[in-house]
């Protein structure tokens, strides 16, 4: 055996297979698995039992059929993942169904694939299906396409037929972008040009399929792109450790490097990069790491660390291609949820620009999209997302659309051109149908210490309510102090005045059928109760975390400054916080997950509104 140290570690190639029914896809995959030694004896034994039941000696296609329901219908419905490896590489096959009605499944398989093997039955030539498969592969950004021209045995291994087919393919696919395109004549059933070069096809000078798959360049172009790391979660440890955890989406980063944090746009420097007990000088895509920064900053899930020179576009409006995946048709100006990197926001589709005929690639006019249709749309979100075009970055350029009521995934989205936002646009509006005057308003008063988690909960609740079609406004204590209460300080009198102003605005909104989400420390019980009396429709939410927990979190570094005496009268330190005596909802953020807290608040609100 070769000592481990001398072996170059294997790498990983994910590829998609697609073909029309009966082109021989299952047979080809079965061949690949079988001839590369990926099939065990007991599986083979079971297989030959079945093959003879089907009246065959050896049918490799039986290796890959999956679910019973499909077996009974004799078709492949869903994407199935298969695994095999050679000395050089480990392969993951996303085996996708071929039929028209399974476009969404093929898109699913293609979304994570680096290469695609498209099957063509040499007798049928280019079919509408072939064009569709080629289009989807290119749309999903697959850079390497291998066209396997199958059943060469049935045309006597004729070179002319193969070359004509190749020419036809090149002609129709001229407008589709790929980096590498290979054509291989094969006979999947008997294994010609699958894992070994076929003596029966001497005129073919290229490599057999497996060898092409082994040679395909996967040296990730993700690494050479600009640095982006969407934050998944924040990890806190002893002695103030605060690690921003996530998978590097693109590029590389080293300790000491400067990054910019979105959405705040604040610059920061990388202090440490860790993976478990390993301290690393550098990280690159697609590593999962935890990063600490030299600066103390308020960063959470959905924020992004980026290359300061080349940061993504931060925008609430962009054009995208949608592949519609649901039986429910698409509707414009309807609230949906968008999941983009680690962010969730409320979104709506402003208009459909056109849909694509995936056989002719022509753009045709459309007002909506139904299952399996692909179209280009204009999207608006309620808060900025940080994105690149899909063609320049697959991670920051992709998203899914989720149904806020049924929770299902409705569509896959590919960002075409993120437009730089119009600075004059109203940041709180989202094109949604106006609800009627019968809508009830409500003031949701979120109180708690600095760092207890009010804003995090408030923002998530905001998204949820918007997605359910409610009119919502956020009144954040910090924002109000920058505008409405600019001149006020932090004495008891001034604090009470500030709270009264917020209460006044909340009352106006509530009267007009808006859900006003107030997020303010509001430390004094008396003034909170006073406001409660004034507003009809009031819900008090106590975001409760012990002072020592808030102080350890210290997201804005305020506790530290208060402790050092830099400012006086800081709630919790040298000014009292009077907790609510009977809040409508209490969120214990030191023991609950964010999701748990948000769910509680949303449930309480919906109960009042219904």
């Amino acid at each position, binding site marked *: *055996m070769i000592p481990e140290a001398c072996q170059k*570690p*294997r*790498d*990983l190639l994910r590829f998609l297979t697609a073909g029309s029914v009966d082109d021989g896809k299952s047979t080809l995959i079965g061949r690949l698995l079988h001839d590369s030694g990926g099939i*065990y*004896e*007991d*599986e083979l034994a079971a297989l030959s039992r079945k093959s003879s039941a089907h009246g065959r000696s050896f049918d490799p296609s039986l290796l890959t*059929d*999956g*679910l*019973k*329901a499909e*077996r009974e219908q004799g078709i492949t419905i*869903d994407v*199935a*993942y*298969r*695994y095999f*490896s050679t000395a050089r*590489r*480990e392969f993951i096959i996303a*085996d996708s169904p071929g039929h028209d009605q399974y476009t*969404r*499944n093929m898109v*699913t398989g293609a*979304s*994570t694939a680096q290469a695609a093997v498209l099957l063509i039955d040499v007798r049928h030539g280019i079919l509408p299906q072939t064009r569709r498969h080629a289009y989807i592969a290119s749309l999903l950004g697959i850079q390497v396409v291998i066209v396997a021209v199958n059943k060469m045995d049935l045309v006597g291994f004729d070179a002319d037929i193969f070359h004509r087919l190749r020419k036809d393919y090149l002609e129709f696919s001229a407008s589709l972008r790929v980096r590498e395109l290979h054509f291989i004549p094969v006979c999947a059933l008997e294994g010609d040009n699958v894992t070994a070069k076929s003596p029966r096809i001497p005129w073919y000078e290229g490599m057999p399929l497996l060898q092409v798959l082994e040679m395909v360049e996967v040296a990730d172009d993700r690494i050479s792109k600009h640095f982006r790391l969407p934050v*998944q*979660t924040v*990890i806190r440890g*002893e002695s103030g*450790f605060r690690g921003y*955890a996530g*998978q590097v989406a693109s590029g590389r980063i080293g300790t000491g490097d400067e990054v910019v944090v979105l959405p705040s746009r604040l610059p920061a420097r990388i202090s440490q990069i*860790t*993976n478990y*007990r390993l*301290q690393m*000088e*550098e990280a*690159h895509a*697609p590593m*999962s790491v*935890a990063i600490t920064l030299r600066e103390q900053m308020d960063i959470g*899930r959905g924020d992004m660390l980026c290359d300061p020179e080349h940061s993504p576009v931060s925008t609430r409006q962009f054009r995208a291609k949608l592949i519609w*995946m649901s039986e429910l048709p698409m509707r414009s100006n309807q609230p949906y*949820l968008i999941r983009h990197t*680690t962010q969730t926001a409320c979104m709506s589709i402003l208009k459909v620009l056109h849909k694509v005929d995936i056989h002719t690639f022509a753009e045709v006019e459309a007002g909506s999209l139904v299952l399996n249709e692909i179209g280009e749309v204009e999207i608006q979100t309620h808060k900025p997302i940080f994105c690149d075009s899909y063609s320049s970055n697959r991670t920051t350029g*992709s998203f*899914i659309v989720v149904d806020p009521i049924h*929770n*299902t*995934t409705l569509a*896959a989205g590919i960002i075409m051109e993120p437009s730089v936002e119009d600075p004059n646009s109203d940041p709180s509006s989202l094109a949604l149908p106006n609800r009627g005057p019968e809508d009830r308003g409500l003031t949701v008063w979120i109180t708690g210490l600095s760092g207890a988690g009010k804003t995090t909960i408030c923002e998530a609740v905001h998204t949820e309510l918007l997605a359910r079609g409610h009119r919502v406004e956020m009144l954040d204590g910090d924002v109000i102090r920058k505008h409405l209460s600019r001149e006020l300080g932090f004495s008891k009198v001034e604090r009470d005045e500030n709270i009264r102003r917020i209460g006044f605005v909340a009352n106006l909104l509530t009267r007009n059928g808006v859900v006003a989400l107030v997020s303010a420390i509001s430390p004094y019980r008396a003034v909170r109760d006073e406001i409660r009396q004034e507003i009809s429709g009031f819900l008090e939410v106590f975001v409760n975390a012990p002072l020592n927990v808030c102080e350890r979190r210290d997201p804005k570094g305020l506790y530290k400054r208060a402790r050092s005496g830099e400012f006086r009268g800081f709630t919790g330190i040298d000014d009292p916080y009077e907790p609510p005596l009977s809040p409508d909802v209490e969120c214990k953020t030191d023991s609950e*997950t964010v*999701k*748990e807290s948000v*769910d509680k608040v949303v449930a309480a609100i919906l109960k009042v509104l219904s």
Partner: protein
Amino acid sequence: MMSPRHFSELDELESESIYILREVAAQFSRPALLYSIGKDSSVLLRLAQKAFYPAKIPFRLLHIDTTYKFREMIEFRDRVCRELGLDLIVHTNREALAEGANPFRLGTTKCCALLKTKALLDALREHEIDAAIGGARRDEEKSRAKERVFSFRDGFGQWDPKNQRPELWNLYNGRIDKGESVRVFPLSNWTELDVWEYIRREEIPVVPLYFAAERRVLVSGEKLIIPEHESPIQKDDVPALMKIRMRSLGCTYCSGAIRSAADSISGIIEELKVARRSERENRLIDHDEDGSMELKKREGYF
């Protein structure tokens, strides 16, 4: 400091799994890690440590104990949980056991349904678990090849293989209603060989039954059964002494051993590289009937 090294397929798999575990922590209220004590669970546990280090693993561990597990498994489980300070829930279907549930009386299908599937569904409900993380891999068994990484289960814990949510890029949709749940499989893309290579690289402790040793076994046709619990076969047969190991661990009755000389991790890896037989062939449960695993999974089996 670590010197830059080639980013291998193991690194890529590790990174993907850590990403998935962090998504679970961010997207769910009460996740739990289904800990089955086997090699896959051991890898899962290490990945969870890595994902949240230096903080503690933010999930509870759940072990569904049929009481027919190997003694060495239970000892190993308790030691690992103690050493890592993990919060372990052990759940057993006591009612079924009191009524005498065992595979000889009920057949393996029924026995699994009561002691594993029902016990699991009860435990998930009792502890209000909305995401159950398991160590299953797609390469293990045919019906798993189409399983999603985030696999949706309805209010009855059931799986509908024909109506799965599309799973695009790495954008996992974990949005569910109350009472529904998601099974999460962070090791979806790992193969058996990957698991062992990772165990070697990371020096992850595993149950000693995986390593070949001289053990007393009952020979029943092609099956080698380590006699630990009373069973009907035991009465007539005399155990033989053989050098054997377990390739996958489960209940004593239903997990067969294999003849092997592999007494180290490297030995196991070498053995796997030339292995001609699949991992689960010594498991009785998959062979009950064609498509049996799929049927179980529809009902809520892991």
